[in-house]
């Protein structure tokens, strides 16, 4: 859904590193090196970032579609 605030295993703060990781990896950097430079040493914290899928943007699209439909229905009944 959205990046967890802390590592499930050790409790290190990881959420503030996700966006930088996503941007840099998309730009073509090596994920392992990005993780090193973000200070994530243990494999428990590294898997938190590596295995994360940020689907909240997708969920937001459902919200927007629902809003559009509501709007359309409102117009229909007005006419």
């Amino acid at each position, binding site marked *: *859904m*959205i*990046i967890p*605030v*802390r*590592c499930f295993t*050790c*409790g*290190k*703060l990881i*959420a*503030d590193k*996700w*966006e930088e990781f996503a941007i840099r990896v998309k730009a073509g950097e090596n994920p392992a090196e990005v993780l090193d430079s973000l200070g994530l040493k*243990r494999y428990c914290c590294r898997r938190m970032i590596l295995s994360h899928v940020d689907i*909240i*943007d997708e*969920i*937001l699209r459902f*919200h*927007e579609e629902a*809003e559009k439909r509501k709007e359309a229905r409102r117009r229909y009944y007005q006419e």
Partner: protein
Amino acid sequence: MLELKTLESDETNLRLLVTGVDTPYINAIRRIVLTEVPCMAIDEVVIIENSSVLHDEIIAHRLGLIPIKTDLDGYNLPEECSCRSEFGCNLCRVTFTLDREAKDEPVTVYSGDLVSENPNIAPVSDKIPIVKLGRGQKLKLEAYARLGRGKNHAKWQPVSLSAHKHLPKIRIDAEKCNACGKCVETCPRKVLAKSKGKVEVVDLYACTMCRDCVDACPEEPSAIEVNWEKNAFIFILESTGALPPERIITEAVKILDRQLKEFTDQIAEVQKA
């Protein structure tokens, strides 16, 4: 004789070489750091409006896990505070407010959007995403942070790592060793190195005592021996940012002191009776 040596130290990490103590001693400190040293975390959240895609409970949980810079001298633990109030007073509670709305564009609500009543008590990072809001969604809440202890909830642990390990002892028998370099190749932590036809230990503290080097040695019995020192430990501490690591250790020792004092007081009373 107890002896301390700092191997590594920065704002969040501390690595100490502790010699002259035994396992129960160092383990007591490790566990007190995890369970007894207080730090601040959001404990109660009043949601005024939440039309985001995350439930109130999830947002409250995410807020609770945000590490918060703690002022141990300025605030009391709620159970020790003189106010005796369930809700708390200015000496045992910090209020945060948050009010964000996505108008035309989706926005991400960050920990930096939390407004604290005391500027010294703030999230350790401003870039922690709390939730994303779609067009027209709104999040408005009030959150109350308190001091607490790790034994009640992990959000009150001031550290993300508190551990100790034995100091390794690596002995290479110069007479048996033929300097083939197999151990140097095998070592996953690059502890060993070959120089001038001899194998040397170059990074002793990195050794995990896996003994792969012993297995790799072609000599029979092995020319390299890995063991550990009896009364020497490497103590590793990684703060979440709530408190400086040195402060965490001194606080842990103070707490241990207080507990032992309580113990001796009780013993004196028992003897009197």
